[in-house]
């Protein structure tokens, strides 16, 4: 039984909500009453319950199995965090109710800020960015504001070829042009090339560390020194912070600002694509430029500063104060782990990735030598001659009961397969995954091509036609033509 659309189940008269009768009274709508039918279908509550339950069962999720999506840190989402986020004193408060009535909320934000600053070794943090990319924007805007204050017009941002797509997109939003820095053979930034690229027109470098190849940038301090010497700032993309949390403080590496994806490192649920949260930590140099609003702890009470009096803040990135619901979940996660547990998070995530790398390196082709951080990068050399592409291999994983790994990213290796198990997988789970992968490699090389090119076979859908979807986009339901409807 296929699940119909709500438009095919419900009608505009049905409602699954009971509301009190509307008292009589004269309308103040200024003659703007909505008279035409909108066309919104309603479902009774039992129908709605079935519809969404059935839909949910067509999803894969962390709760169901290993989610080896490199660069996404799909770790266990504790339900304690969900419970905390639903306390009425945190969920049912309004961003603009009197500050005297939300002192606990400010304390929570301030406490989370303290944890983030301590873990990163940075003196300041902006809490309001709504997601990782929004955090990037926040960091780059602070850099731009700092340079503007210095009266310098710098136009170029450097970024490695392997950077996330958000990096150049963000730089563009701040009016910068992106220039790529090449990588060395071993998958890191080419320090010499970087030094040559640096100059008075360079505003900043945007660097992910551990980088998107799953490697730690060995020359990170030299890079920071060179960048600073050239009068530029060092933006660190914190997407891979999970690998080093509690083990390395970015502040000790010379970073000027870094966003933190609370939904990656600190386990707020991905929710099928959001919401995220992307607080940004700052060095002393950039701290004056943080956006409004921010919490200030006074002697007796907290204040949320909503208007900057210094004139240095680069402005406001969002209405209200940021992703409070995500703050709650992240802080609950952090307190649960503590300083000791978070350190263990980094160690176990790196251990798990290296265990996979080691256990598969004889049958798959790791792209780089040496230990990886929290993700293992393979390329498609091992598939050579098999007729199986990275995409096919990944789709075949679905039939084995797994979500595919990240494919074709980073762009710097051919047919990339980026596997990030995270620290919340057990050894038993990893061994089972390794077994499945070895089995698939064996099948791929033994000519069982249909298993791959036709995959998935055992999923709610077979492969979907994405080309037609993009060429003739159907982006909403449309009422069938009357002729059809009458049939």
């Amino acid at each position, binding site marked *: 039984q296929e699940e119909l659309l709500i438009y095919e189940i419900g009608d505009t008269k049905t409602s699954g909500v009971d509301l009190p009768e509307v008292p009589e009274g004269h309308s103040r709508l200024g003659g703007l009453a909505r008279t035409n039918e909108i066309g919104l279908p309603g479902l009774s509550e039992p129908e709605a319950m079935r519809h969404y339950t059935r839909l949910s069962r067509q999803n894969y999720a962390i709760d169901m199995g290993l989610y080896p999506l490199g660069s996404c840190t799909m770790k266990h989402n504790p339900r304690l965090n969900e419970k905390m986020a639903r306390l009425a004193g945190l969920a049912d408060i309004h961003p603009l109710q009197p500050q005297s009535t939300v002192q606990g909320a400010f304390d929570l934000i301030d406490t989370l800020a303290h944890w983030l600053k301590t873990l990163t070794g940075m003196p300041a943090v902006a809490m309001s960015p709504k997601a990782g990319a929004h955090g990037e924007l926040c960091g780059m805007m602070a850099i731009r504001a700092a340079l503007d204050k210095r009266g310098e017009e710098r136009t170029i941002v450097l970024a490695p070829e392997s950077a996330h797509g958000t990096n150049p997109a963000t730089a563009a939003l701040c009016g910068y042009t992106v220039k790529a820095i090449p990588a060395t053979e071993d998958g890191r930034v080419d320090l010499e090339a970087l030094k040559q690229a640096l100059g008075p027109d360079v505003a900043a470098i945007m660097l992910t560390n551990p980088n998107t190849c799953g490697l730690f940038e060995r020359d990170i301090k030299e890079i920071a020194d060179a960048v600073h010497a050239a009068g530029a700032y060092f933006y660190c993309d914190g997407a891979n912070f999970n690998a080093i949390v509690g083990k390395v403080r970015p502040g000790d590496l010379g970073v000027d600002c870094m966003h933190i994806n609370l939904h990656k490192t600190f386990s707020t649920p991905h929710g099928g694509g959001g919401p995220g949260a992307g607080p940004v930590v700052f060095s002393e140099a950039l701290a004056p430029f943080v956006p409004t609003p921010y919490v200030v702890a006074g002697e007796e009470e907290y204040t949320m500063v909503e208007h900057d009096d210094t004139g240095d803040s680069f402005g406001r990135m969002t209405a209200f104060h940021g992703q409070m619901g995500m703050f709650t979940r992240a802080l609950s996660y952090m307190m649960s782990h503590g300083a000791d547990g978070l350190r263990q998070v980094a160690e176990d995530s790196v251990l798990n990735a290296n265990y996979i790398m080691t256990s598969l390196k004889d049958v798959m082709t790791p792209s780089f030598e040496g230990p990886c951080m929290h993700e293992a990068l393979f390329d498609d050399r091992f598939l050579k001659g098999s007729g199986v592409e990275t995409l096919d291999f990944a789709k075949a994983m679905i039939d084995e009961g797994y979500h595919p790994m990240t494919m074709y990213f980073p762009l710097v290796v051919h047919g990339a397969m980026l596997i990030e198990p995270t620290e919340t997988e057990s050894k038993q789970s990893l061994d089972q995954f390794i077994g499945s992968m070895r089995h698939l490699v064996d099948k791929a090389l033994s000519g069982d091509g249909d298993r791959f090119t036709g995959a998935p076979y055992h999923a709610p*859908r077979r492969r979907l036609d994405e080309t037609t979807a*993009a060429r003739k986009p159907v982006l909403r339901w449309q009422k069938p033509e009357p002729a059809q409807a009458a049939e």
Partner: protein
Amino acid sequence: MRYLPLTPDDRQAMLAKIGVTHIDELFRDVPADALLDAPVDLPRHATEMEVEAAFKSFAGRNLPAGEAPFFVGAGAYRHHVPATVDYMLQRGEFLTAYTPYQPEISQGTLQALFEFQTQVAQIFGMDVANASMYDGSTAAAEAVLMARRVTRKNKAIISGSLHPQYIEVIRCTTAFTEDVTVVNPPALSGVEELISQIDDDISCVVVQNPDFFGNLHDFTKLAEAVHEKKALLVVVVTEVVSLGAIKSPGEMGADIVVGEGQSLGVGLNFGGPYVGLFATNQKYVRQMPGRLCGETRDADGKRGFVLTLSTREQHIRREKATSNICTNAGLCTLAFSIHMTLLGEAGFRKLAALNHARASELADKLSDIDGVELLNESFFNEFTLRLSKPAAEVVEQLVEQGVIAGLPVSRLYPGNEELDNLLLVAVTETVSENDMYALYYELKEALK
């Protein structure tokens, strides 16, 4: 550690398999002096009981809106959310799923997004909507950027009755590009002469309905004037429930409609996460920012859904992308869509009517008080009062009586003395007769 499955024995066995003896050998690329040899200076791990105690303490020092007569709106509204919505959000299959890049095993999220997009488009009276943005304010900024891309002009005129924090966000987001944003002063009266400001250089005019002060507008004429200059009309809606009662921006000729969807399903959450709504007309689809879900077929010919038109997005198009956004408000779209599905058109209209009736009733009641003047000719569920005293003082005074009277407009317009006595009052279906009476009584006392 309850969340970490590896046992000490596992770790030993795995290190051995890898061929190292100590975990730090895997961190060998980290500069030696930067590798911490002990945990940072933060508390050690905590039990569930300890974490719960800490959060109950945080929560206990806040006054939940549900525990007082509560009248704050100003872009975030307290509506009742059916229990079914939150149950569904908590299902692991929705909660712990990733972005649906692998459509074969993500049809649940994708079909829900397709339904969401259709609902949003219908509510706004537009052709298409995206799969959501961070919130209403960032969506408004994205609308201005999009208008620039569509028109290849860079001057935006911003209504003075747009939510002041939205104005700040638009200003901030366009600060470092070549955009020019002309922001009008607040238009308390509800009348603002925008048409005369339109010239050949503008990319868009940004207006809000109901506006920040609660007034309702018909933008039909404005739309015509904007279109004449080959510019776009951007309409912002911060209270989406209003569209169950009033004419849609699409019917008025809007080209882009953005909104805050928090009112349906999402809750207050002290400001976030919320859900940004974004809709436009078919011809502008490829300039639209954000994720889009589209219908297609699978290899067996079955209907299915995929993320599509991703060539607009940053992971493909990098610096030429329509936006740097790479998430949507996934779970909040689901909350919005389930709540909307439960309401249906009949329920949505009734909910809107109820909000309007309650607000009307309160507006009448409060207008009777000496020292209270209602500024609005028209409104939906929120209106502005001019008090005989500074509103911030009155609000603090009423807090002592356990009544949260509304927003003193001065909080968002500091230093504008003309606005100091204005109180913005919102009324939803969650406000009871007793709540209204409490406000009436306490306000009357305070203004004596």
